[in-house]
């Protein structure tokens, strides 16, 4: 992907051509060696070099490939071992009626666990709450994150460091700590929010935020937004940096207002970055766990899918059922990714600095 289409018609005489300044080194290397390996396999339709050079080149390509896998292989194997293996195990376990409280009663039940889950309103409610949290947090974060990114982008040098440091603080803090901070602030016994905002209709000293679904979700979402907006704003800031400055300048000269420049020049030019930021945050929010666990532990209609999976398998030791939920959760994430990539044509690799 890094060699990309521009590398395709690489002329054979390119070794002599001096590298142009605009091309970056890895791309050029990629172009060179890819063409070589193609020549080596003899499938290059644009005529093959003579046999000796061919052999030498394919030897080099093979040596390079071997070295590449020696270096990258361990990381690859570890990644597969820590994820692929457990998920396959989960798929297998999900086909059994398997409870650790009665391990000897383990029996093959096929897809029955899935049927039980999908016909249980608990699953659908958790899915609905999870989706609700995901959509709201991502929407708020996109707006806030954009505002922060623009602020950081425009800030004068002296302020930039300070602003950056400030917005990085939530990023670095443990989610559990942030959950406790928000929880204690809103808690009916230890909190001060009720006292501060008792002039707002509906808020009084006896408002128990964590006794109802709506108010609980409000605090959960607020803490999630606070904690993860930095991430989205940094991705957007990186996107902003890629918007060609002369385009903006030209729009300015042509008399475009700030808003027009934003919607017509800036946003279209960083569409990929926006899509990636949204997708990443959506997947992250979909897996929300820590804040919910700390603040309500799923009470009052705040149970999310991760919590449901955790409670079923580790809480109630129903490994079979819990595995089935884990697999369904995984499939949801895959589905979100798939839809996002198909629908928005997100080029994940491209926007993550891959080009």
């Amino acid at each position, binding site marked *: 992907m*890094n*060699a990309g289409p521009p590398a395709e018609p690489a002329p054979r005489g390119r070794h002599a051509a001096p590298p142009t300044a605009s091309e*970056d*080194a890895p791309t050029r*290397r990629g172009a060179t*060696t*890819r063409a070589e390996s193609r020549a080596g396999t003899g499938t290059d339709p644009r005529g093959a070099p003579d046999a000796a050079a061919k052999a030498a080149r394919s030897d080099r390509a093979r040596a*390079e490939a071997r*070295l*590449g*896998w020696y*270096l*990258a292989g361990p*990381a*690859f194997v570890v*990644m597969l071992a*820590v*994820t692929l293996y*457990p*998920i396959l195990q*989960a798929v297998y*376990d999900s086909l059994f009626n398997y409870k650790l409280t009665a391990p000897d009663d383990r029996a093959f039940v096929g897809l029955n666990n899935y049927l039980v889950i999908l016909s249980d309103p608990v699953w659908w409610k958790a899915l609905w709450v999870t989706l609700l949290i995901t959509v709201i947090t991502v929407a708020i974060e996109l707006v806030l994150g954009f505002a922060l990114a623009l602020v950081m982008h425009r800030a*004068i040098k002296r*302020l930039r460091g300070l*602003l*950056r*440091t*400030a917005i*990085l*603080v939530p*990023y*670095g*803090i*443990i*989610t*559990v*700590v942030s959950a*406790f*901070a928000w929880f*204690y602030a809103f808690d009916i016994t230890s909190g*001060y929010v*009720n006292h501060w905002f008792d002039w707002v209709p509906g808020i009084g000293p006896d408002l128990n935020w964590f006794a109802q679904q709506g108010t609980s979700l409000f605090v959960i979402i607020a*803490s999630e937004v606070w904690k993860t907006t930095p991430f989205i704003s940094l*991705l957007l800031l*990186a996107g902003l*940096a890629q918007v060609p400055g002369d385009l903006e300048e030209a729009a300015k000269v042509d008399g475009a207002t700030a808003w027009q420049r934003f919607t017509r020049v800036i946003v279209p030019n960083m569409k990929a970055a926006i899509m990636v930021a949204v997708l990443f945050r959506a*997947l992250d929010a979909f*897996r929300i*766990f820590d804040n919910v*666990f700390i603040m309500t532990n799923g009470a009052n209609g705040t149970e999310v899918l*991760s919590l449901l*999976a*955790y409670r079923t*398998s*580790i809480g109630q030791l129903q*490994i079979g059922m819990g595995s089935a939920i*884990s697999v369904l959760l995984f499939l949801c994430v895959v589905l979100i990714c798939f839809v996002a990539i198909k629908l928005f044509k997100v080029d*994940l690799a491209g926007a*993550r*600095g891959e080009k």
Partner: protein
Amino acid sequence: MGSVLSTRAKIWWAVITVVVLVGSLFPVVSIFMTSFKGPSDINSGTFLPPRWSTDNYEQILATGGSAQELFLSALRNSIGISLIATVIAVVLATLCAYAIARLNFPGKRLILTTALGVSIFPVVSIVTPLFNLWRNIGLYDTWIGLIIPYLSLTLPISIWTLAAFFRQIPWELEQAAQVDGATPWQAFRKAIVPLAAPGVFTTALIAFFIAWNDFVYGISLTSTSAARPVPAALAFFTGASYFEEPTGAISAAAVVVTIPVVVLVVLFQRQIVSGLTQGAVKG
């Protein structure tokens, strides 16, 4: 620089800065204040502690403090496990990212896609089978039992971040050094390593934050102070042995584990931002 700005712009920037600062720091200040409330003031309903008390800190830090053993062992576990998971991830990711940035070999895209896939993997989906497996093979409630799954958090982001850093290194420098008479090793060490080191360091920092932040593995794969990390220990601080809810102790513990993070962020904000976004040379 500042003199170019009009007074109105200056005021605007001041307001914006204050809003951002308050928004980012408020919850941290909030829990900081709670941590200094004594047992009798914890439910005072005020933001500032009516009387400043260090009782909570004595409880978790002083010898003989009622939650000291619990907190310090969790701190030890968190630091140890996160550091080891970070070192392993960064070493593996450095080799991997170097190969990706520098060499051409079939399967490059596969490796990057795998890293992406692993990073979007729901942790809860991995934890159920691991819980069962770890109990069977004796890794439940051990350091290794957490270090291995932590790699699923730290490795993918390390590979992506480092690959981005390494791509921006002008590798011609190495050739230039060789032309100037350096041996290949000297050229690599003198020209490339100094450019790569900041990226590796930043990646380590980011990976460490991520491991340090883990909660799901921490509560699922441990049961005692043998391996339980700080976030999980905070969640399971119980008021059972005290007369009141452990609000104060949790707040104090939260502040203690947050201070180092804030210091690291302040010291390395520039690197962290460039690590999370683009890469070393541009940053």
